[in-house]
């Protein structure tokens, strides 16, 4: 929508030579949105400057975070964020895509619509609700499940990953379903006409064609997983400086969002270096989410072109 209105380089009163309110208003609002984003990034950059100056690249690669000793290494949190998001994706992808194949290829259209609405409702459930369910049931379940491995508690990176998987499942499923439905029906009919079974058509024809769209669904799900705060906050354990090892999967850890959601932001306020370190975490988070979302939208666009 932005590219469409911001693209024309001709003066506003172009073509028919008269002023268009719609055009100029949408241009103004698009610019406003762009400026807001640019301003946001700029503020983050400026406010986090002191920590980049003090720690340099060590801010991203450092593994120790002790604010009172002025040690700021964000790697364990970046690691936590990545691990948690990828566990979520690993669990949500097979289930979400299979479910989408079912709704898009097998269910009659009317039932599909009802199911889709229900799933999309799930995507709108506030994350704190998921978080509380996580505290009440999931962390105890994980705690008992992992007993042979002797975890210290039910707050682990794995718990957060499973909870996130549930949360991004609706996104993954409904967008994958859209991608599958985007494959022209004529091709499906042709395949059936050639004698392919329903399963062969779905797996051999529709699925490969919808792959870019499904990729987009996964990336957008991943984007949501990166940014999710409250639900993760409640079950991840919030332990600083977790070791970057396999064992850490079943131990308490910290993600970028759980750190930012905690009480440390209040302590950091007023201490320019500590504050910069906290804002820097926000910047890293913003950067990761933007990259993943952009990639996702790119894939989604490519799918649209194919579908036309």
């Amino acid at each position: 929508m932005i590219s469409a209105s911001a693209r024309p380089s001709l003066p506003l009163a172009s073509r028919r030579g008269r002023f268009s309110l719609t055009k100029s208003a949408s241009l103004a609002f698009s610019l406003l949105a762009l400026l807001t984003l640019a301003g946001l990034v700029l503020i983050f950059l400026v406010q986090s400057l002191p920590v980049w100056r003090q720690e340099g690249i060590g801010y991203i690669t450092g593994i120790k975070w002790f604010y009172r000793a002025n040690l700021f290494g964000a790697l364990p949190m970046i690691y936590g964020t990545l691990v948690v998001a990828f566990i979520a994706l690993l669990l949500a992808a097979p289930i979400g895509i299979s479910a989408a194949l079912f709704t898009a290829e097998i269910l009659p259209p009317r039932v599909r619509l009802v199911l889709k609405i229900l799933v999309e409702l799930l995507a709108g459930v506030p994350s704190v609700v998921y978080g509380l369910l996580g505290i009440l049931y999931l962390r105890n379940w994980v705690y008992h499940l992992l007993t042979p491995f002797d975890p210290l508690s039910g707050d682990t990176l794995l718990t957060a990953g499973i909870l996130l998987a549930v949360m991004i499942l609706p996104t993954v499923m409904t967008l994958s379903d859209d991608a599958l439905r985007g494959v022209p029906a004529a091709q499906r009919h042709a395949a059936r006409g050639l004698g392919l079974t329903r399963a062969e058509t779905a797996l051999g024809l529709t699925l490969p064609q919808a792959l870019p769209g499904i990729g987009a669904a996964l990336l957008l799900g991943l984007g949501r997983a990166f940014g999710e705060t409250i639900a993760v906050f409640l079950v991840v354990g919030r332990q600083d400086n977790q070791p970057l090892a396999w064992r850490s999967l079943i131990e308490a850890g910290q993600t970028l969002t759980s750190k930012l959601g905690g009480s440390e932001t209040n302590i950091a306020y007023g201490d320019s270096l500590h504050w910069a370190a906290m804002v820097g975490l926000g910047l890293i988070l913003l950067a990761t989410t933007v990259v993943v979302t952009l990639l996702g939208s790119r894939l989604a666009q490519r799918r649209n072109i194919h579908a036309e």
Partner: protein
Amino acid sequence: MKFLTSCCALLALASFTQAETLKINGSTTVNLPAAEGAEILRAEKKMDIQVDTQGGSSGGISALGDGQVQIGMSSKPVSDDDRTKYPKVKFNPIHIGEDAVAMIVSKDVWDGGLQALTKQQTQDLYEGKVKNWKEVGGPDERVVFFNKEPGRGTWEVFAHWAYGDPKKAPQVSLPEVGGNEETRNKVGSTRGAISQLSSSWADGKKVFALGIKTESGDVLQPTPDNIATHKYPMSRPLFLITNGEPQGEAKVFVDFMLSPQGQELVKKHGYLALDQLKTETP
């Protein structure tokens, strides 16, 4: 993009409505009586009150400092650091009751025979020097220390007692817990768990408040008497904080909490009301 623009619009809207709503934020400990007080005022005086517990006591102090709320709730005194951070704000703490922080443990530790700790033992547990409850006279079970987030009133009271000054407390990497509800739930459902929590939240069914063993061998329990006389070392005042003298709706709320009806609420949630205190707190 669309989202950002609508956010701007929402923010603009929010700033219009702010003038009418009495906003309160801070400690989950003070929240219990305060939220109930707000409920009563909402019903009786049709006041528009919003009570929140973002970031605990220090969240309440900084929200007040930033002018986002008219009243901050805190279970720790306003420190000199806070006053330097917000030089323009006249922090005015209003004492509404008294509470105690206890070390709380899960049922298996309590049943395993551990019912009191010395200061030294608590420090060793906090710093990870003691990894099994056996070493301090408890059951053969690993220690899982859920640390209250630094910045929370509860944590500050604990650090004052154990290390003299929160700034002298060693920095540790422990799993952290925030609100009282979360703390109680997590300790109650984990074997070998310990944490710091407002003693009135220890229900004696799933989580248990430990006594403190003094050097002379006495065990001090967080009983109302011991809290009122400050014999129990981790007692703490509960505050509502305003910027200068409370005015308008904020004054109505503060006056209500200090009235007999409000003080009843303080008692109802297991804290000590002002008239139960034997000596004035500094």
